[in-house]
């Protein structure tokens, strides 16, 4: 009679230790992503499991600093004055919520945008001349 293996011990994921979206990489300071070594899916933030294939073979990667603005709003509530936020589709098909700054180039959907890091703050801004 073959012995039934002992029930495995599951361990909690310390996701609160690594929830910062901005990280330092050889490429410089970039948004933190996670790439699955099994199926290749890239995800925003630090993850320990792939949401597509459920593999735990994942690694921390820098996300591209450029992308396209899917949509945006200027938020008038929440106590920060007027705050522009939007969804940016990064060049590797990862979507992130982001603060936006606009200068000479007004915000519009489908506009090319790029990451700007200022101290611990980060935001996206329209690519000048695009």
């Amino acid at each position, binding site marked *: 009679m073959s012995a039934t293996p002992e029930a495995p011990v599951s361990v909690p994921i310390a996701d609160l230790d690594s929830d910062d*979206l901005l990280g330092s990489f050889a490429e410089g300071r970039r948004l933190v992503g996670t790439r699955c070594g099994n199926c290749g899916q890239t*995800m925003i933030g630090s993850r320990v499991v792939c*949401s597509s294939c459920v593999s735990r073979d994942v690694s921390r990667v820098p996300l591209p600093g450029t992308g396209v603005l899917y*949509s*945006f709003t*200027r938020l*008038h*509530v929440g106590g920060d004055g007027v705050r522009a936020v939007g*969804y940016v589709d990064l060049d590797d*098909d990862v979507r992130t919520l982001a603060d936006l700054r606009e200068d000479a180039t007004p915000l519009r959907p489908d506009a090319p945008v790029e990451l700007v890091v200022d101290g611990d703050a980060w935001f996206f801004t329209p690519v000048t001349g695009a």
Partner: protein
Amino acid sequence: MAEDAYVISASMIPFGKYRSSSYVGLAVSPLIDALQRAGVQKSDVDAVYVGHSYGGMMTGQRITKEIGLGTVPTVNVDNACSSGATAVHEAATAIAQGLIDVAVVIGVEKLTQFGGGTLPLSPEDREVKQGIVMPAVYAMRATRYLYENDATVDDLALVSVKARRHGALNPFAQYRQEVTVEQVLAARPVADPLTLLMCCPTGDGAAVVVLASERARHRLGIGGAARVAASVLHSGQVQEGFRDMTKPEITYQSARDAYAQAGIEPHDLDMIEFHDAFSIAELVYYEAFGLTEKHSAVALLRDGRTTFGGDVVVNPSGGLLAKGHPVGASGVAQVAEAFWQLTGQAGARQIEDARWAATHVTGGGTAGLDHGACTIHIFEAA
């Protein structure tokens, strides 16, 4: 469904701000009224389902104990704005499976406890940590919708104007004053392009419906009822990359399943209560429910085909925009409206000869999901 389930009564308090009422205070009166109108004794009740999001521990039991309705299972359900509709779904499913004969469903929420502002979301969520709020999500949906469609902010305002016109006829609505397009556009900006009058108000409310099996319905000798022709609950599916915010797949898929369950087509519906938490949502859901082709929702609205006298009356109650949106109560209140319309109890807002009604609520702001939950019901006059 294996066995038919019926809504046999409905009661609710007008949605509004009731700072002197607790969750119990909000819910006990409609609970007593709904049981009385159904001709149901406490001993007839087989199970209680209670939808709420912010009521805290044992909200259902705290309410039912006030009238000594105990012993039977009480299930507290949280699915954000879909909490109440999820509770209806659980009750209808248990009856359809032949497990129970009579179920009481309570939807209740007290948003004035937060003292105003946007709905509190889970602080564990990635985008919530970044400062997302529900108006911003819908505003981004609106920005993209206006960009892709031949639609303007006037159309967003027109949704609110229609909602308020309907709400003016509804004694259960939080807002009963009509507004003009100009007033909507001139209201305080919340999240561009949405103004305050394009956003549902915060408030308190409670609604109760009683569901019964065919067997119990005959035993109780109830007259007018609404047969549950479809009861569908879907959860959101994560997208790490691109998502078309103007085509919320959770509602498309839930609507497809609901029509299949009911065996009807979109044009059969006499009324729909949509989750119009923000005015943009109504336009998006016309398309998701197959009332019209993609990119033609505004024509339906502008031509008056979704108000009284049109093809299908959308949000005859005034919807979330005018009736109000006490999160966990909304899904049950929608079912109450469908029941009243299908049984001829809707007073000044009665839709003539209404036979088919649909109710729809989504739930939740969660990073990576369109919505966390979507509940759709279809009812037939019985």
